[in-house]
């Protein structure tokens, strides 16, 4: 191959075959080293490279696969990577530097990287071609499985490996009963021993996935569509669709036909070179030292070496193989397997009651693998010690150390984010060099945590450790200037500031990046009991136009429908407005209200006028909904008047801004039809009164609220709720939901503040609540008649036609407009 000599412009490109995570990693590694070398990436799939790993999570969460794209389209333009989408390289001649695409086009290249990945294995059993039999590999599969799960009465997943279990979990999450059919006598037998597998089976069953072991599927039954499975032992099961997940096979056909040596994968050496000197292979299609890796982490390392090889450099050390490590992405089942955890001498810590099993295997004094089930603390540390082949004298001690390990104990080389191949050292460096002050910034800068997200807590921990403060101190309201909420509150109180501008002038907060302005605006309003000077530039667009911005720049309108109770007259007005303004969608929300979606900003004031209903604050960090169930009014089980209580609670709280949104609900009995156990504030009627739960969650996290109090009357319940709300308003960090707040400060502290009447604090909280509530504008939608700025809802209107005005620019520009404008 041409050894890295400077290439004249117009030289033949480096060809990257395949646009998976590996293809993308190779392009990025090349670009980091050489901004000039021409690059062509041929992507067999009709889409830009995306994060395949997160498909499992997406199946469960019913998300949109389009959100997985690794880089925006502009990245390829900006980095001059020529991309061919939806085309395959059909044949390749490395020696001649020529290849042919499926479109018939011929391409020339100088060097090439094969990143062709793999195909799912489909066993050649009868029925495998029936409708309703799916592999689980790409976005199409994910969507097809999701659709099939709608309304199906049972699904079968053939294969009880990692991927099969993730598929089963995704299907179960969609409410479809599912059976995992596995050939061996335990799940994930390649990674797990009996001890861990014994815990995994029941854990999967608890999530709604039945497990059948030692079943060899002999045929898939059905005429046109799959209707069941028949096993070698003669048994059968019925199902409406089948997902096959028994393994993968590297795509080597292209390499093979070019005469490149292949075994199970394309054989490469330590420099990722194949038997063709100008061709490397990276990712799931490559076989190094006899191993084909089916995971992401190794391919990042491989891509770095391959890039050096392609550019004729000796930069990185040769690739020496990776330790296999896998984390099961099933919510509620924590499982990590590392390396080879079979045989050898093992140290095991197991607690059946807590469903915890932790094992490390040592051979010749060095750890070779580990299994962590139920408690995966310290898995990064264990992976690193396996990788480094550290000598271990006391394996039990290593296990114990791992459970205690924090981000601080990890060596710099330890991989933190497996999805994007980011090690701790890189994160520490980014924090130090960039002076980063929040997890979000670290994620944006390093991309650690932007894949499956499971490493985010560790990223936060590393941030805190690098920053040297404890957890609370390290959360800055203004990350640019490293000012905490407490410090800023003290400044505001000390100077009696009433506006964001005053704070900015005093201490610079909000000037550099502006991200903290909404938080600062909230703080100012809270400290001043809502008698502050409102400045709209400090608010997010939603709070300037009192509607939620949507992906296409339009807005959604959610009127307040207290307790979810509406009337024919309101419904008629909503219908009239929707028709008149051609609202693209009218939707019932999960908050028992009605959403008009896709409204143009200009139409908002007129729509509010005609609706003649108050704002539901669905766009704001504020009191949102109070859901109710039908309660004693109608329900035969009702113990409390949940509708009346809910409407009253909503009236008393509405209009208040809060650190993050506050959603409540009131249920008439412990059947809990309004989901009160998982709300920020939830009432449940019980015999003789109300239970009040706080800190519940059912969004990105699911958490049952903590029981704060049980009181006899509705008035008392509402009083406790308002006292809690004010305590939260005053003490939570900006954007901290009650579920995080309650965990951070602990229920004891909350009970003291909210319930201990002798201390006087609850009474003070109620008084400050009263003051704040008295000052809130009743309904922001009244700004339709009296806008804060006359042209708040419209763009600039160059009057009339696009007339060219004025003298030649030269003359005007010389007047240094920038100074004028001050």
């Amino acid at each position: 191959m041409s050894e890295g000599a400077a290439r004249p412009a117009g030289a033949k490109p480096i060809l990257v075959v395949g646009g998976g995570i590996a293809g993308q990693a190779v392009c990025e590694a090349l670009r980091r080293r050489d901004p000039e070398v021409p690059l062509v990436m041929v992507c067999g799939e009709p889409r830009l490279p995306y994060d395949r790993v997160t498909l499992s999570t997406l199946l469960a969460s019913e998300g949109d696969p389009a959100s997985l794209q690794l880089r925006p389209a502009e990245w390829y333009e900006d980095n001059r990577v020529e991309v061919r989408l939806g085309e395959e390289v059909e044949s390749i001649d490395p020696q001649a530097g020529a290849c042919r695409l499926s479109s018939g086009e011929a391409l020339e290249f100088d060097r090439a990287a094969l990143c062709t990945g793999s195909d799912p294995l489909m066993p050649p059993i009868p029925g495998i071609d029936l409708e309703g039999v799916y592999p689980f590999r790409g976005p199409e599969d994910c969507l097809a499985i999701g659709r099939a799960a709608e309304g199906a009465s049972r699904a079968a997943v053939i294969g009880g490996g990692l991927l099969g279990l993730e598929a089963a979990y995704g299907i179960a999450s969609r409410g479809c009963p599912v059976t995992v059919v596995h050939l061996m006598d335990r799940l994930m037998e390649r990674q797990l021993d009996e001890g861990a597998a014994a815990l995994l089976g029941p854990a999967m069953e608890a999530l709604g996935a039945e497990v059948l072991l030692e079943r060899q599927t002999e045929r898939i039954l059905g005429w046109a569509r799959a209707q069941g499975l028949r096993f070698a032992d003669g048994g059968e099961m019925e199902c409406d669709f089948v997902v096959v997940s028994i393994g993968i096979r590297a795509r080597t056909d292209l390499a093979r036909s070019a005469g490149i040596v292949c075994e199970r994968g394309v054989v490469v050496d330590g420099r990722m070179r194949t038997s063709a000197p100008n061709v490397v292979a990276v990712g799931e299609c490559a076989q190094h030292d006899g191993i084909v890796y089916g995971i992401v982490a190794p391919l990042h390392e491989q891509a770095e070496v391959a890039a050096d090889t392609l550019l004729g450099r000796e930069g990185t050390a040769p690739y020496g193989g990776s330790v296999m490590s896998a984390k099961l992405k099933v919510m509620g089942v924590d499982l990590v397997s590392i390396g080879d955890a079979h045989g050898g001498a093992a140290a095991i810590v197991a607690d059946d009651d807590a469903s915890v099993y932790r094992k490390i295997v040592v051979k010749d004094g060095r750890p070779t693998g580990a299994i962590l089930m139920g408690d995966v603390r310290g898995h990064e540390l264990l992976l690193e010690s396996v990788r480094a082949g550290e000598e271990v004298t006391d394996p039990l001690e290593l296990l114990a150390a791992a459970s205690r390990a924090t981000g601080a104990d990890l060596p710099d080389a330890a991989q933190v984010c497996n999805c994007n191949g980011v090690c701790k050292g890189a994160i520490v460096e980014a924090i130090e060099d960039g002076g980063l002050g929040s997890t979000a910034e670290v994620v944006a800068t390093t991309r650690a945590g932007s894949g499956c997200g499971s490493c985010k807590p560790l990223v936060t921990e590393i941030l805190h450790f690098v920053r040297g403060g404890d957890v609370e101190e390290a959360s800055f309201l203004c990350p640019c200037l490293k000012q905490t909420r407490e410090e800023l509150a003290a400044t505001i109180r000390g100077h009696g500031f009433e506006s964001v501008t005053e704070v900015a002038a005093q201490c610079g907060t909000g000037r550099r990046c502006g991200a903290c302005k909404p938080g600062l605006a909230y703080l100012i309003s809270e400290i001043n009991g809502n008698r502050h000077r409102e400045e709209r530039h400090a608010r997010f667009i939603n709070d300037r136009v009192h509607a939620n911005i949507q992906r296409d720049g339009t807005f959604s309108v959610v009127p307040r429908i207290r307790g979810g109770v509406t009337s024919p007259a309101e419904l008629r007005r909503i219908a009239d407005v929707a028709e008149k303004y051609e609202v693209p969608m009218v939707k019932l929300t999960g908050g028992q209200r009605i959403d008009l979606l896709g409204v143009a900003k200009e139409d908002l004031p007129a729509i509010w006028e005609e609706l003649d209903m108050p704002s539901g604050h669905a766009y704001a960090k504020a009191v949102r909904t109070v859901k109710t169930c039908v309660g004693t009014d109608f329900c035969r089980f009702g113990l409390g008047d949940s509708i009346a209580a809910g409407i009253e609670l909503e009236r008393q709280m509405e209009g208040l801004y809060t650190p993050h949104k506050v959603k409540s609900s009131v249920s008439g009995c412990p059947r809990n039809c309004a989901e009160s156990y998982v709300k920020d504030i939830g009432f449940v009627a019980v015999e003789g009164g109300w239970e009040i739960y706080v800190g519940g969650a059912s969004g990105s996290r699911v958490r049952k609220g903590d029981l704060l109090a049980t009181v006899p009357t509705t008035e008392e319940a509402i009083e406790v709720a308002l006292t809690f709300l004010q305590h939260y308003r005053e003490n939570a960090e900006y954007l901290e939901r009650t579920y995080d707040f309650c965990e951070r400060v602990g229920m004891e502290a909350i009970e003291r503040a909210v319930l201990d009447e002798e201390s006087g604090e609850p009474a003070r909280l109620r008084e400050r609540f009263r003051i704040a509530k008295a000052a809130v504008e009743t309904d922001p939608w009244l700004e339709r008649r009296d806008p804060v700025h006359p042209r708040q809802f419209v763009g600039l209107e160059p009057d009339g036609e696009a007339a060219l005005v004025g003298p030649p620019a030269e003359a005007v520009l010389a007047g240094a407009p920038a100074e004028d404008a001050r």
Partner: protein
Amino acid sequence: MTASGSTAATALHRLGRAEDIPRFEGRTATVAGVSLAVFSTEHGFVAIGAACPHQGGPLADGIVSERCVTCPLHNRRIDLHTGEVVAGGEGRVPAYEVVERDGDLYVPVSGVDGTPLEREPLEAAT
């Protein structure tokens, strides 16, 4: 900061009234089919392409600070003077000079087709 005198502009196109953009906010305007987001900053008025390079978010609706605007959709932060994405991702949008005269705002446009002229790269403003 001095504005470049060598712009190839031959005319100015009126955008609207300066008072229609509150300080630290943005508004959109369309000039010869090109959508601009015009901002009022501490240092006068500036304009950039209206659509975020990420997924086309309306930059005029973003939060404005001294030198940048944060896209309201996914928080990419864009330098108002260079149009460069400075945090949250990569990419850039065109950047334009805005001239204020007698309370009116203008953008330099091409004398040929009336499209706005991108500003010349600024040296680091002090």
